[in-house]
């Protein structure tokens, strides 16, 4: 499979990896059967390969679905929105590709310089999305009461909220906890 770091080619590379892993897993099942295992035993003994190829097949489908949906959205979206959506798509594709570099080096024509270039593009993509990060998550449109977080509120008043929540702790409802009389005081005076 001829490697290039364009988004559609990387997605096809996931398919190439799945197909080649599937070919190998199938061969290994057959070999085990020939060696006297039952088909069920042979499948069990090929379990690690099977799980991994199913996962890569799924990740290829995720990338393909995201790419198709984003390309479709870009046909009607404004140019600035289209640009950020395509950047998001590139980021997730690079991120997934960097997680299976062993497979890409094994089953495609990817070389070490290709890998260096992929890493460079990944870092560039992070830098390109960084200025819009807050606006993207704002656009997810989750109200504060849904997020339910002291750290993630829209107004960003993190420290005030953390302190306010600490004050709600049942242990802060009275200045001295009853355990002082029960345990701490006798303990400190050697009377426990």
């Amino acid at each position, binding site marked *: 499979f001829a490697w290039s770091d364009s988004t559609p080619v990387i997605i096809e590379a996931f*398919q*190439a990896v*799945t*197909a080649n892993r*599937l*070919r190998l*897993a*199938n061969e290994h*099942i057959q070999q085990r059967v020939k060696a006297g295992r039952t088909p069920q035993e042979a*499948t069990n003994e090929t*379990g690690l390969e*099977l799980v991994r*190829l*199913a996962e890569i*097949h*799924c*990740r290829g*489908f*995720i990338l393909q*679905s*995201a790419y198709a*949906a*984003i390309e479709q959205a870009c046909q009607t979206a*404004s140019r*600035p929105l289209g640009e*950020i959506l395509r950047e998001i*798509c590139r*980021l*997730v594709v690079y*991120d997934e590709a960097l997680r299976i570099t062993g497979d890409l080096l*094994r089953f495609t024509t990817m070389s070490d310089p290709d890998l260096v270039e992929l890493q460079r593009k990944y*870092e560039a993509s*992070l830098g390109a*999305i960084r*200025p819009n*990060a*807050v*606006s*993207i*998550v*704002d*656009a*997810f*449109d*989750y109200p504060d*009461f*849904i*997020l339910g*977080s*002291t*750290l*993630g509120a*829209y*107004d*960003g*008043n*993190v420290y005030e909220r*953390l302190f306010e*929540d600490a004050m*709600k702790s049942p242990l802060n409802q009275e200045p001295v906890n009853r355990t002082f009389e029960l345990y701490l005081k006798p303990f400190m005076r050697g009377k426990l």
Partner: protein
Amino acid sequence: VNKDLLDERSKCTFDKDEFTLWWVGGKEKLNAKRDREHFCMNQPEFRDSVPLHFASHQEVYEETIRKATTIFSKTRELLKKQGYDANNFVNFMDIMLGDGFIREVNPLRIHFSMFIPSIKAHGSAEQQDRWLQKAVNCEIIGSYAQTELGHGTFLRGLETTATFDEETDEIVINSPRLSAYKWWPGGLGLTANHCIVMAQLYSKGRCHGVNPFMVQIRDEETHMPLAGIEIGEIGNKLGYNGVNNGFLGFKNFRIPRSNTLMKNAKLLRDGTYQKPISSVLNYGTMVFVRVMITRNMAQLLAKAATIAVRYSCVRRQSVIDPNKPEVQVIDHQTQQVKLLPQIAKAIALKLTADNLWKMYEATQVDLETGNTDRLPELHAMACCLKAVSSADTAAGVEVCRLSCGGHGYLTSANFLSMYGLATAASTYEGENTVLYLQTARYLVKVWNQALKGQRLMPTVRYLEQYATKPAKR
């Protein structure tokens, strides 16, 4: 508003409202979502009466059941006023299942997500008339009991028996040993008074495999467990504690034969068992649930990323240039690599769930004409997507938590309950490794079909070109 966040927002290069419309799925959906949120936000009864992350296990249940029942009643009232079909349970789904409304999860969740859909999926028309309306109106509250203490995803291993007694026209349900006790079903502990029970059906001395049965488990007036039923709650968990998971054991418990759910398979008066036309028909419900899980996981990861990104712009940490002040944490590349892929992943998962949902709808249309061709393909894809989405979301929430340092460790940051939700999804509806193996089994099958030159289904058609040409390294 924090000054750093204002600065960030001023740098935006795109129209945020346009993005939101695209993300939510159009103006109509966005308006409905905001109306729903506005309504919920303005009901004082919907707020927690105690901060739940300080509450005990018992307090969590008592508070979540208070909120769930109030939300259902108030929402039904509103829907009636607005002229919606208040009997359509789908109207309640977003509110009842939306974990954001009840952080510790809703004890009525399984009633809406499994019990009601199962009556539709497994009940005959007559049985749907008998129970569906009552369930939608919450006159009865149900759970769905499949998993047992000793058996999970492997259905054929279930031990609960349902033996037909021809003399009385009844089914006798038994839990032969402790490993046969139903274990896990949400709402089963203290909430439900009915339950759909999966059990091995025996008639005329033969086992006909697993079948669903409608079983009343508690008295409708007193809520006391019925004689022959042993029931309770399974205890505290890593998360998901409002959902009220329970256990259930049977000792010679009798139900009428007419409580055997008979949309697909049938048990006749003389004990004759009629098999379902196709065993893959059961896939439909499983696929539906797994698509919902993938959708929920995408939303969950997007929420976690929202929290972590905002925090990372407010929080300052170290200097990059010694002559300049402390920078926002997000300016460190090592922080960007934690946060930004989570945003991208959440979006990709959401778009994939939408795609799978379209496939699901198309397959439902095919099923009405008796065409089951795409069900195995859809099932295989739903299996691995549920696994990848829940595993990646759990990992993503954890990365978001780590990106918020010590503050992310506080329960008030809300990563704990999000992590609880994601890891629960890795566990329920099939353990992830088992699901990957189910997908792999399908892939091996279609690979061998491709080797024989057969045409494959769309999502695996790419395999054809690799199967027909020799392997090269």
